[in-house]
């Protein structure tokens, strides 16, 4: 067992402050990593997490579901890491934080313990939205958020034949792809007219849909869930059997996965009187309205924006760590990131106002398109006043970063417009 990180008391230094971190996800861990580098001995850190294991990479849950990787391989830090860093890890339901006594700077846990803090970091992430339809709490109606969800899905997929995934966003499609790889007959249902409608234009989405359909996944688009039908098993539990659409169609379902979006988890903060709206309101320094309390990740709301993709979280972690280490210089500005996705082996990239269309927005919007559907390639650049204002890349995304740079710098592209969509040319890279 590695030697515990022994802090030799330096008399001239004030004794380290107590930092309590609520949430053991990717955002909090990245903040701690940045903090330990910036100010290794500033805090005596305690991490409280609901899930009874170290922190893991949530993006890798899809490959895990699809059997391409194992639980061990997706762990970022296991328990020994925390000890090595001198961090006290309290992981498990019994340690769930239920109230912050901000006047006495104490946090109360489910098992009754109270932990003092000088500074606190809340990273409680987000909760999957469960549709309030009849039968939504039946056995076999799952979400796709953490490792336990994946394990439940894997277990149920052993004997189950049919799966219905509600929601054709990124998570829904990843779930569908994973379950299909596990041999289940999967149907994805979606309110919008095409999948990933918040990331792709219709043409790219339909290409993706065709690709998934070619792998046996079925789609019902522009529909809503009417109800989930169940039957009671021997133990008196309601087991899901099928799902009824508002069109009346009944889909057989041994498993239903709800992937209809996430909502920031602000229960603890709200109950503790910390100012919240959709998420915990934080400043450009990721500080909540209580100066001792910071927040990062999907639970946060910053300048009216909430977060679902991983890229912004890492930027928040860097800024927050900067302030926790009292360097106090970084400031977080939200840059609408490019969407960089890999859905079942197909790389996708979209950025800016990718869905503008000359027919709707008028002549000053110009489109440059390149299609090779047989080779799974579709690229679209949206041009306005000789500048890139948006792009969708399907199948060949290698030039995504370059286009993003051109868009960000508002570079005039008329000189190399003819070859623009074919990628960066050695001589005309700006």
């Amino acid at each position, binding site marked *: 067992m590695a030697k515990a990180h022994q802090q030799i008391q330096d008399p001239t230094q004030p004794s380290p402050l107590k930092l309590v971190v609520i949430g053991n996800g990717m955002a909090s861990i990245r903040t701690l990593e940045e903090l330990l580098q910036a100010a290794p001995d500033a805090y005596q850190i305690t991490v409280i997490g609901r899930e009874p294991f170290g922190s893991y990479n949530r993006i890798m849950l899809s490959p895990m579901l699809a059997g391409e990787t194992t639980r061990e391989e997706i762990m970022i830090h296991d328990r020994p890491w925390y000890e090595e860093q001198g961090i006290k890890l309290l992981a498990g339901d019994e340690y769930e934080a239920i109230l912050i006594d901000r006047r006495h700077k104490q946090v109360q846990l489910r098992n009754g313990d109270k932990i003092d803090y000088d500074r606190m970091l809340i990273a409680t992430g987000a909760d999957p939205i469960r549709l309030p339809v009849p039968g939504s709490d039946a056995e076999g109606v799952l979400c796709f958020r953490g490792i336990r969800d994946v394990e439940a899905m894997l277990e149920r997929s052993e004997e189950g034949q049919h799966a219905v995934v509600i929601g054709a966003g990124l998570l829904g499609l990843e779930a569908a792809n994973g379950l299909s790889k596990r041999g289940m007959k999967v149907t994805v249902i979606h309110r919008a007219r095409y999948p990933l409608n918040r990331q792709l234009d219709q043409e790219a989405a339909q290409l993706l849909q065709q690709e998934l359909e070619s792998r046996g996944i079925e789609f019902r688009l522009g529909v809503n869930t009417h109800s989930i039908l169940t039957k009671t098993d021997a133990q008196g539990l309601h087991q899901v059997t099928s799902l009824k659409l508002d069109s009346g169609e009944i889909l057989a379902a041994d498993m239903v996965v709800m992937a209809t979006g996430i909502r920031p988890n602000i229960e603890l903060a709200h109950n503790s009187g910390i100012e919240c709206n959709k998420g915990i309101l934080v400043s450009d320094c990721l500080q909540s309205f209580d100066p001792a309390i910071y927040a990062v990740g999907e639970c946060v709301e910053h300048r009216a924006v909430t977060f679902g993709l991983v890229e912004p979280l890492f930027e928040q972690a860097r800024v927050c760590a900067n302030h926790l280490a009292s360097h106090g210089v970084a400031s977080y500005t939200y840059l609408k990131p490019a969407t960089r996705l890999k859905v079942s082996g197909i790389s996708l990239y979209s950025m800016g106002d990718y869905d503008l269309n000359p027919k709707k927005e008028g002549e000053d919007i110009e*489109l440059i398109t*390149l*299609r090779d*559907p*047989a080779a799974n390639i579709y690229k679209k650049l949206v041009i306005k006043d000789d500048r890139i204002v948006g792009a969708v890349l399907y199948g060949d995304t290698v030039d995504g970063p370059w286009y993003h740079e051109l868009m960000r710098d508002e570079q005039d592209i008329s000189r190399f417009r*003819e070859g623009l969509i074919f990628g960066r040319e050695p001589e005309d890279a700006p």
Partner: protein
Amino acid sequence: MSVSIQEKQLIPLRTVDTICAYCGTGCGIRVEIADDQAQTLQVQGDSEHPTNFGRLCSKGSNLNETMDIEARLLHPEVDGQRVDWDSALDTTASRIRKIIDEHGPDAFAIYCSGQLLTEDYYVANKLMKGFIGSANIDTNSRLCMSSTVAGHKRAFGSDTVPGCYEDLDHAELVILTGSNTAWCHPILFQRMRAAKEANPGRKTVVIDPRRTATCDIADLHLALKPGSDAFLFNGLLSYLARNNALNHNYIDNHTTGLDAAVALADEHSDSIETVAEQCGLEVESVETFYRWFMETENTVTTFSQGINQSSSGSDKVNAIINCHLATGRIGKPGMGPLSFTGQPNAMGGREVGGLANQLAAHMELNNPKHRDLLSRFWNTNNLAPSAGLKAVDLFQAIGTGKVKGVWIIATNPVDSLPDADRVRDALQGCELVIQSDCMNETDTTPFAHIRFPALGWGEKDGTLTNSERRISRQRAIYPRSGEAHADWWIISRVAQKLGFEEAFNYQHVAEVFDEHARLSAFENSEQGILRDFNLAGMAGLSRSQYEQLQPVQWPVLKQADQQSTGTQRLFGEGGFFTPDRRANFVAVTPRFPENNTSQQYPLILNTGRIRDQWHTMTRTGLSPKLSAHLPEPFVEIHPAEAERYQLQEGTIARLQSHWGSMLARVRITDSIGRGQLFVPMHWTAQFSSQGRMGPLVNPVVDPVSGQPESKHTPTSIVPYQGKWFGFLLSRQRLQDSRLEGIEYRVRSTGVDHHRYELADSNDDANWTELLSLLGEKGDLLEYQDNNQQRFRAARIDDGRLQSLLIIGPSSALPERDWLASLFASEQLEDVERRQLLSGKPPAGAADTGPVVCACFGVGRNTILNAIAEQKLDSTEAVGCALKAGTNCGSCIPEIRQLLKN
């Protein structure tokens, strides 16, 4: 049956010695054949043939690529329906008979070609002048050689070429006037280059308004004012007289008329300054030229269409001959006037008398004694009474309905004649058009009521004569295709159906030749009618002697020991064929071209050949190698003029004359003078929608020879206001009708694909319609930039490129070469598929650039890279490194240019 060529040595089943199908040089070809169907063969130069000693130019070396069976006409047709030979011959005879009976013999005509063999020509001439009884038989040689014929006859009393190719080896001074020899007679050009390298003291003067590739060996280039040649040579005669450089011994013994000729020369061009002003040249250049001519005994003056195709072509020929007669430099080794003929057998036609103003065998229509001799020999009493219609007059007569029926053999007048659209209208309204051709699709085809399938080059058997009077045998390599027949067979069978059985029942080509030889010798003596053209030593040959006939220069007189050796030169010691056996000086009044430029048509249009194409490209157009060099009709223009008329390199321009218009790709070059334009003669409606130059050329002819002034037509030029431009590369050839709606279309043949250059000025690109040109087969790739009107698409069928279409707002489009090369590969690499519609090769792959050396397919970039990397400093070094320029050598001038910059 596209023929494959074996690179490695093959065991020849049999070897055939024959003659190239193209220019008048007449190179010997040795074909080694490995199987009886002649599927695999090797075409190479005949090392023993005295014309080329084994060398071949790019066209000759690629003859095998033009043997495409699909392109051949294989069966007789009447009114569009395939018929058997007998009914076709019967119908032809009855329709000809009907015209002659109703409107007389002069209502029918034959228009034939310098591509025919001598035997074909003989039978056609005999039929028209001997038995139908009209001299309405003319030939496309009217367009290239008739001024030379007229000049020879006025000076020598006969159409005789005094010298031979060997003179080029001995000459100390070679003058090339009105001849882009490097491109039109490449092997003779190489012979001159070799002689020059072997004898550095030797000088070459090129006289041509354009700086062509021929200037590569020029010590002096006289870029004279177009059409001013007669002033220059008249000035030379006057200069020679002034400096008493005349050969009085030769003049007194063998010529008449010197004084009148010198007097007229003095009147117009009595000083070098006057000549320099008339010809737009520097005084020193004229002075140097005249001095070199005066001081150099061994002087050869070669000339071709630049001299002939003029409204005073005959006078220009005589102005040249005058200078040689005045110095006695004629008919001796290394000296004399030497005319280069355009077509492989223009000479054969002239020997037979296949011109409307000749009788036969170098005899004259208006000479009663000649007519009596011929009537007796042919045993006919229906000899044509008077001269017939020359080419331009003939088609005007067809237009007015005076001539009701025409038999067009192996040529396309709708492309080559001046004012060509009137020729097209004339044929449209003509009652009876008969066509004999080996090709199925030509511009004459739409007008032909009756079509006869003729033998192709590799299937013919007979004789032909090159520019130095050398008769050689053309021998068959392949069995005949389909039901094709030799032209002499077709004509004689029609003649028999017309009732002339006895005079035309030839069973074998040797019989026709024998009659031709016997006619040339018939009463050919002092007592009878002396003619230069005499094949007495070749009359009475057996079939096997005819089969093994070796190349020989006529006249071929009967020798005591039966060993007939032929004649290398004539007139060295006089002996001309005028009544007094003396050569005539022709007093020449020099004239500028007929039509002057005007405010509306300010530029002079010049027309001519390009290196790798032949005539109307019916054969060379089939060869990917030959089509790569210059695949589109183009117009050469001087940089200053291009600026004045706002023309950019590589864009399209519209040329307009009083008679017609065409579209051509702009090539800006200072090798052409100011105020001038040059366009190639080769493009036809088979390959281009508006690439024919014929419609623009003014129907002005030399009054003596009837040869059109194709080198000088006042013309205007403006940028083509295209709305969209593009090109299509397609593995399959498209039905021409598919592209009809597009204004500018040019088709050329590539390796494993066809290439179409396209443009339109009427309406915007209709992309959905254009997309259909790609066909249905395979995956569709598509690129669109609507705002910029840039559209690109391709079809790939399981990895193999099928078709590619690129459309843009201007001529600035991707290079064709890399994209075209992709059709040769079975499977596209992923990176090539990704980059395909960008038109640019992936960073790594080499873009060889446009082809320079057609024989070995070496591109410009490849040469430039090799020069840079391997520090090559001479064409020989480039030749060792890349083989470029080591076969036919006609690309050496371009390689020299690349070495320079």
